[in-house]
């Protein structure tokens, strides 16, 4: 192997104090290279975390089912007792609420994943040089794995409430992936600050708690101003509602908002990726200092 390396030109790396942003082309190349190089490690880390999680648990996948079901049940009970008054939904309310809470859970999972994996990998980051994208990818992978379990709940909901299966169902999978990317984007955005300060993680759990109520998760999108702003200004709304509508009704009621949010999300995701990469060496410095 080394013999080959002598004949082939060796890769050269230069470490300088200069910000990598000053040579954007080189950085883009590095990012692409690292993304490809990180696949195997990402897979290993994902398999490691998932198997460790389930091997040490007695109830296992039950924990993936429980939170959304419990949350949906609360709202179903509140609604049926007229404690809260939710306007008519296009599908039976329990199905509506169940869909909403499962999707919301997926969003929150993907939002929390980046900071969680990076924090857990601190010792690794401080000692070993590896493609950092692997951490984020393994986090996304774990979210997707949990999602695949939760899809079982949704299938049961389809059967119980006799919801017609349309072409919107496969499309809704894409919308759900969109939701995962949106969550990952927010998660990645807060990761650098979150690694430095633990305040961020606390703040995030508080904010996601409130965010739930200003997102049409357990109630349909409000039509009247000013409450309709919840649907227009909240980036999660069009994606989450879109995914639910596609799955249960086979139509996307608000495609414009859906695609605008998706586009902005992809752009911001690229930016947060760059920020994350630039931040890691600085964060490692503060981890070990």
């Amino acid at each position, binding site marked *: *192997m*080394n013999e080959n*390396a*002598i004949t082939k030109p*060796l*890769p*050269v*790396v*230069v*470490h*300088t*104090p*200069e*910000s990598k*942003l*000053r040579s954007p082309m080189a950085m883009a190349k590095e990012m692409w290279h690292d993304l490809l*190089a990180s696949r*195997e*490690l990402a*897979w*290993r*880390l994902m398999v*490691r*975390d998932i*198997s*460790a999680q389930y*091997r*040490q648990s007695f109830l296992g996948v039950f924990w993936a089912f429980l939170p959304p079901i419990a949350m949906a049940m609360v709202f179903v009970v509140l609604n049926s007792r007229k404690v809260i008054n939710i306007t008519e939904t296009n599908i039976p309310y329990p199905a509506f609420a169940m869909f909403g809470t499962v999707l919301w859970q997926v969003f929150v999972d993907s939002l929390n994943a980046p900071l969680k994996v990076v924090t857990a990998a601190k*010792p*690794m*980051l*401080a*000692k*070993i*040089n*590896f493609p950092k994208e692997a951490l984020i990818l393994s986090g996304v992978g774990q979210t997707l794995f949990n999602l695949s379990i939760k899809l079982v709940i949704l299938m049961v909901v389809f059967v119980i409430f006799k919801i017609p299966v349309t072409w919107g169902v496969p499309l809704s999978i894409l919308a759900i992936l969109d939701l995962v990317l949106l969550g990952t984007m927010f998660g990645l955005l807060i990761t*650098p*600050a979150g690694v*430095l*300060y633990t305040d961020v993680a606390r703040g995030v759990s508080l904010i996601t708690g409130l965010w739930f109520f200003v997102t049409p998760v357990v109630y349909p999108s409000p039509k009247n101003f000013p409450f309709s702003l919840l649907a227009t200004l909240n980036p999660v709304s069009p994606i989450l509602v879109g995914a639910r509508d596609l799955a249960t009704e086979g139509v996307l009621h608000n495609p414009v908002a859906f695609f605008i949010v998706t586009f902005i999300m992809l752009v911001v995701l690229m930016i947060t990726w760059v*920020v994350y990469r*630039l*931040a890691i*060496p*600085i*964060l*490692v*410095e*503060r981890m*070990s*200092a």
Partner: protein
Amino acid sequence: MGCLPLGYTHPRRKDERVSSSGVLIKADNVSKKFCRRLKRALWYGAKDLTSELLGRRTRRKGLRTDEFWALRDVSFELTRGECLGLIGRNGAGKSTLLKMLNGLIKPDRGKIMIRGRVGALIELGTGFNPILTGRENIYVNAAVLGIPKGEVDKKLDSVIEFAEIHDFIDTPVQNYSSGMKVRLGFAIAAQLQPDVLLIDEVLAVGDVGFRAKCFNAIDKMTRNAAVILVSHSMATISRICSRIIVMNDGKAVYNDNDVPRGIEYYYSKLNCQTSFLTGNGRATIVKMRMDSKGRKGIQTIRYRDELRVHLWASVDQMITYPTFSIAFHNQELYPISQWSSLYQGVRIKNTGSILHLQIDFNEINLNPSVYYITVTILDGDQREVLAKSFSIEKIQILGDFVAHCPVQLVAQCTVHPPNDQHHHAPSAC
């Protein structure tokens, strides 16, 4: 780790190394600053992050409040086949330098150029999950180190073989002893074939037998790489390294090819307070003086010079025949050699007043270096330590001959002609 691993008997000569392919590591005035206080460090981190995102060309040149230079203006070049030893006290900046070479943190000033694949033996078993089995963790750790799965599949058996954990390979790692974990970690890391190899001292792990194996594996890896080795074991440094940097307060205070001199320099800068007294107080060491060749109260002699030690001590009257001992410790405070009155059959009668002993060493054949002298007074059958003064004096031995072992034995050597039929010890030389 203070001495040579016993099983290791195959030191590689430095000239055996493959030399070619030019410079693999080039460090140019590399500097790094750290902050002493956590809150401030985090705040500076946030600021640095901002300036990084704004694409600033350099970071702040000077020091901010509570900052200090953890590393200052270190420069060197290393080609394939060379090994650089990095020594210095804790906190001298060795690990910081390794981290920068590994690309984990950025320099604040200067420039580092690395050619080829970098392998780091800095932490073993990174990424191990205690719940998973040894076999599963091999794959995780290998992936972290960048070894592709195909290669791991091929080498799996040799890794398990090397780690000597056949019966436990499918047991969760949390049930491993710490030694087993480290052995497994090393066995995986030993599969790396880097161009640039960074080694931190962690390697001296496990029992003596495994340590020998480790050194053999490292030997193989270093043969075709540019190596940087951080170690506190001067024996390891002097055996492996062809260059040496002595670090002190973040600066490379010695940077040269002469490894033995570098080690001496490090020791001379190492002004640690090592002397202290123990014992049950039934004896007191009043004074000690060293003479040599008519000079009194010396601290320096030449290799193979004579040495006369005067010792004044008072011992409790209840003890009729105390035992005296003088021991030489090396700079890592390992005992090297000793004189004992009991071993020599010298009966020292305690009179109750101050005893004055004069001990004559005809020839001090210890390697040129600095040694610490420890004086011990025991009772007649060595059951009770009456007084013990660690490092009561320091003696420096000067000379040009530095051997592998600290003590040179003096022997008669005869060279027999080829037709000689005598069988007794013909190969003594």
